[in-house]
């Protein structure tokens, strides 16, 4: 086995590992609200989301081969690697991909440990940008588009990440306000479970869309590595095993459930009711799919978080602004830090050189992952305690609600929403 082949194997394993972290890091986007309002039991929620991610991944018939083209000049327009980088059996391209994936995984794991919902796609593209800049020089980075469409680091990452939460907040706020206006006079006669149905429906759409979009990216990166090393030639199709393995990895990751992040998004930011949850999830699904249809790159994480926040604000529910602040910090730092890690990994791999260099990068990644995993066991968060009361009540800084109890959800007392956090789906019959 020559150097390029060994590196290729490491790239494939690392790509699947990234896909796996992508799964559990983003479970919260679809399911946090449904879990926190009791629309779905935690295990059922992650199981449903995993199955739908798998379905979504298999719907990815189209090859997302040009995924790195958004930020670096590694590939040509049709998705093949730049020919001048293909000396040494594609080792140069492979190392950039490996280092980029490693950078993305490192940041995904670190933010998971902290329970912060940061964007997996920003972590991936950040890692690749850093590794690309280190391997190709600054000229290898695509900062902005050519004026015909939003592209590059500025147009696909920086600007959308600032504007997407605002859109999501506006949509969820409006939806939540409207839903409450219509139903508040008859709230005592409506059952929470009807809102939970709406919530589960929209959360399911988000899960399928996630499988389609995100698994496609990993499949694209894996196929790029195969082309670079001469094991695949088509730029319009991908190997069946790539599709199967990537789909399985993202679904398995989703089923693992990033409980820390689910907890932060579902309980830590704002305590929402099923009506608010339906508005939030409806907003997430609609904004994501509209953006997908209109070709506007948005991060699922930013949209989901904005929607939960909007659903809370639409009903005047106290928001834990300190949690919101930590999330925003994580968003702002995801791309640059993943880029730094990607660059560092590339530099290490390149300094050592060859297959040994790639192996060193892989071992560093494995070591760090083990350390993160061990650290995570010190403070267990799982399906059993994901919905426990968020203790840091003092963090609520919204002056209007200074004295509001954490479990209470604003000014309405016409139903039993105060218990929504732990409530099982109501089994009431209507006839």
């Amino acid at each position, binding site marked *: 086995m020559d150097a390029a082949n060994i590196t290729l194997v490491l790239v494939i394993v690392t790509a699947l590992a990234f896909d796996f972290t992508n799964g559990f890091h983003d479970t919260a986007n679809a399911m946090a609200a449904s879990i926190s309002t009791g629309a779905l039991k935690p295990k059922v929620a992650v199981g449903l989301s995993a199955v739908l991610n798998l379905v*979504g991944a298999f*719907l*990815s018939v*189209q*090859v997302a081969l040009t995924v790195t083209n958004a930020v670096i000049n590694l590939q040509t327009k049709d998705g093949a690697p730049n020919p001048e980088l293909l000396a040494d059996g594609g080792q140069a391209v492979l190392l950039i991909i490996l280092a980029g994936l490693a950078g993305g995984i490192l940041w995904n794991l670190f933010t998971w440990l902290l329970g912060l919902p940061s964007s997996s796609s920003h972590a991936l593209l950040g890692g690749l940008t850093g590794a690309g800049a280190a391997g190709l020089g600054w000229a290898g980075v695509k900062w902005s*588009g050519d*004026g*015909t*469409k*939003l592209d590059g680091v*500025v*147009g696909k990452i920086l*600007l*959308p990440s600032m*504007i997407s939460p605002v*859109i*999501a907040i*506006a*949509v*969820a706020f*409006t*939806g*939540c306000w*409207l*839903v409450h206006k*219509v*139903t508040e006079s*008859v709230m*005592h*006669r*409506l059952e929470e479970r*009807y809102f939970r149905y*709406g919530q589960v*429906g929209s959360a399911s*759409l988000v899960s*399928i*869309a996630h499988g*389609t*979009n995100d698994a496609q990216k990993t499949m694209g990166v894996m196929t790029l590595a195969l082309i670079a090393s001469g094991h695949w030639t088509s730029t319009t199709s991908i190997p069946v095993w790539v599709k199967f393995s990537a789909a399985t990895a993202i679904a398995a990751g989703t089923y693992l459930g990033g409980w820390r992040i689910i907890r932060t998004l579902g309980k830590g930011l704002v305590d929402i009711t099923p009506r608010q949850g*339906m*508005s939030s999830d*409806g*907003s*997430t*699904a*609609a*904004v994501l*799919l*509209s*953006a*997908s*249809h*209109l*070709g*506007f790159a*948005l991060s699922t994480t930013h949209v989901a978080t904005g929607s939960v926040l909007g659903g809370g604000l639409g009903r005047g529910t106290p928001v834990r602004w300190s949690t919101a602040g930590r999330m925003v910090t994580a968003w702002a730092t995801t791309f640059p830090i993943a880029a730094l890690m990607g660059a560092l990994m590339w530099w290490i791999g390149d300094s050592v050189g060859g297959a040994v260099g790639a192996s060193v990068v892989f071992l560093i990644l494995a070591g760090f992952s083990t350390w993160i995993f061990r650290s995570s066991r010190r403070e267990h968060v799982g399906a059993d305690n994901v919905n426990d009361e968020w203790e840091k009540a003092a963090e609520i800084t919204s002056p209007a609600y200074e004295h509001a109890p954490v479990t209470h959800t604003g000014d309405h007392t016409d139903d039993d929403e105060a218990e929504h956090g732990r409530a099982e789906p109501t089994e*009431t*019959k*209507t*006839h």
Partner: protein
Amino acid sequence: MNTLQLLLKGASEVLVAGLVFGAGLPFVYAVALRVLTIGSTAYADPSGEIHSTPRMSSRLFAALLIAVVVAGIVVGMMIIVATGFGKEVSFANIYPTIVDK
């Protein structure tokens, strides 16, 4: 167009579509639930179970509204499937169809 114009154009389109579907459909769904309470008598028995019998006209109207919501979900699914197949959804015929990009 410069980047800022492109951004504002894209963002405003997403905002409008998001409001129509993301706020509009939950609203329609809530109206359907509200309609079901019109003309019906409801009471809660001691165990907290709610019993009510909506009028037929309310039921029909609510069914119509729910159908609108279901249609919205179908459009959403079509967009996901189209993305997976590298195609896009066209509204040129008013009703959505999946077409080549």
